[in-house]
């Protein structure tokens, strides 16, 4: 209770990563990923990649295919979600969606850091 919230967080076990969930941290992660991707795409040209199908011969096929499918899946899920999402009480009161997990099964403790 003595220190400011920031110093309190510093003493937490996972403090090495502190800040990764800020906007700045996100940007850094994104840029790192971009660099890694570029590096891997370049590495793909250093040797001949053996595949089973012709499509795999396309340059960095796995890279752009993965990228496009991932974006496509995200958008598809967003659209389907419009139709399938419901409130938690949809199946009535006697449903595990609505109830809290019983405390007897838990060991809820706050971090002492």
């Amino acid at each position, binding site marked *: 209770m003595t220190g400011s919230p920031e110093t309190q967080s510093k003493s937490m076990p996972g403090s090495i990563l502190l800040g*990764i*969930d800020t906007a700045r941290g996100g940007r850094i992660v*994104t840029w790192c990923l971009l660099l890694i991707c570029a590096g*891997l795409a370049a590495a793909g040209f250093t040797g001949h990649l053996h595949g*089973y199908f012709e499509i795999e011969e396309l340059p960095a096929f796995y890279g752009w295919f*993965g990228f496009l499918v991932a974006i496509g899946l995200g958008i598809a899920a967003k659209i389907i979600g419009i139709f399938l999402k419901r409130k938690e009480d949809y199946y009535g009161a006697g449903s*595990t*969606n609505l109830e*809290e*997990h019983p405390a007897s099964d838990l060991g809820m403790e706050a971090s002492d850091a």
Partner: protein
Amino acid sequence: MPEYLTPALAYVAAALLVPFVPKGALRGLYLAIVPLAGILIFWGLTPGTYNAFNVMGMQIGLMRVDALSQLFGLAFSVAAILAALYAWHLRDTIQQIATLLYAGSAMGAVFAADLITLFVFWEGTAIASVFLIWARRTEGSFAAGMRYLIVQIGSGVILIAGIVLLYRETGSIAFTAMELGSPATWTILAAIGIKCAFPFLHNWMHDAYPSATVTGTVVLSIFTTKLAIYALLRGFPGTELLIYIGIAMALFPIVFALLENDLRRVLTYSLNSQLGFMVVGAGIGTPLAINGAAAHAVASIFYQGLLFMSVGAILFRTGTARATALGGLYRTMPLTMIFCLVGAASISALPLTSGFVSKSMILSAGGYEKMFPVWIALLAASIGAILHTGLRLPYLAFFGSDGGLRPKEAPGGMLAAMGLTAALCIAIGVMPAAFYALLPNDVPYEPYTFSHTIVQLQLVAFVALAFALAVKRGLLPKAERGIVLDTDWIYRRLLSAILGSIGRLIAGLWKGAGRMIASSLNWGAGIVYHLHGPRGPFARTWPTGAMVMVVAFLLGMTLVVTYI
């Protein structure tokens, strides 16, 4: 070897003794040692069928030892040990007994050489496992457990029907590879399909697993579905239909996994999708594909178990597994986060993890057979797995928007279990040769070629990039409180709505026509009760004269029949 010995027996005997072992460390140790005893029973035996005997002219075999059954038996045993460690803190005798009986039934089923034994243990897994759901002891979990039990018992009933038909057809109950084509084999496939969560037969899993206790969900994720995969590999290898079922199964859960808010349910969908890979492997049926499916099943037991464990640890400490309430947990649960990331890396098939060496076998098997649609669909499903479980799940739980929760790190037993499971995932990935030696078929396969490693790294990296951009640009569904409709809607809402409206319709008709026909008509149970109830003619104590009249009538009738 005694005639009735099967690893299941060790588990059942141990389960009976659980109440007599003092709670605490001693019992924890006891529960972790039982699977070792199970291993001792089958390990090192030369392949063959043991403990065979004859019942009513049918050949029962309790212990079929070959590479496939040993592989699954070993994986189940190790997973049971890890699950026991994970549940070290647990003081609930019912769950402990249920876990042992459940694991034992699964072991018994894996070693069953005949279908009757398989059926007995098949139902055993259903009955034992439901207590892991009921142990949550809430109204919702009771209802979910009931639905689960009905489906699972139903699967067993269908299985025995199929067995009876098969016995009629072939006169044998041996559990060997079958050809689809007769009603018998279709029925058996349907029974396995339910347990395996084929599309449209799948929703029991997503309904029930997230409704179980913290430890119960972990245990449930290990056995039932992998047992079904084992049954497919044993009973229907090379059945073409399975390829298409498997593809559908690998693809459709992706959307649900991306939409779900409950992280345990995200994992059941991702498990469902991974099962699709194995079903495809069973369907392709080449030695490499069978190896791939078996390897992936074993790898998935561990990495999927690891993921369930880490989410369970979060639930255990925070009281919720809803993504909306979580986020930012890396601060105080760093070890859990690391273990979760190992699981995430494995399901993403990152090199040096178990997923890489197992999943690639199935894709390669599709590639060797030049099945382009199969291959591309599985590639897309792999991308989905990286997206929803490899990235989204750890992101929502440990990073993402800070939910403000600062829970303590998971307890020691959980950490130990997760640590060992994570080590196992990496060990399999680092030493594939030792792992491949356990597989049923002797097919040389080298996962770590230059091109394969590089393209898989490309895939993961680019999907990660896409994920980062999608999160920023809002191209992914937002995590928000709520549920996603699945086919259980059909029986939880549609069916009850239909029955309700039929009921209302009949009630309306009944009221309207009531005055005219009430005396002559009755409805359903009413009639039955009228006839069979305590005061009905079937149950009433008849006067002696009336009894004799009945006798005389029947005598007369029979005489008439005789002379016709």
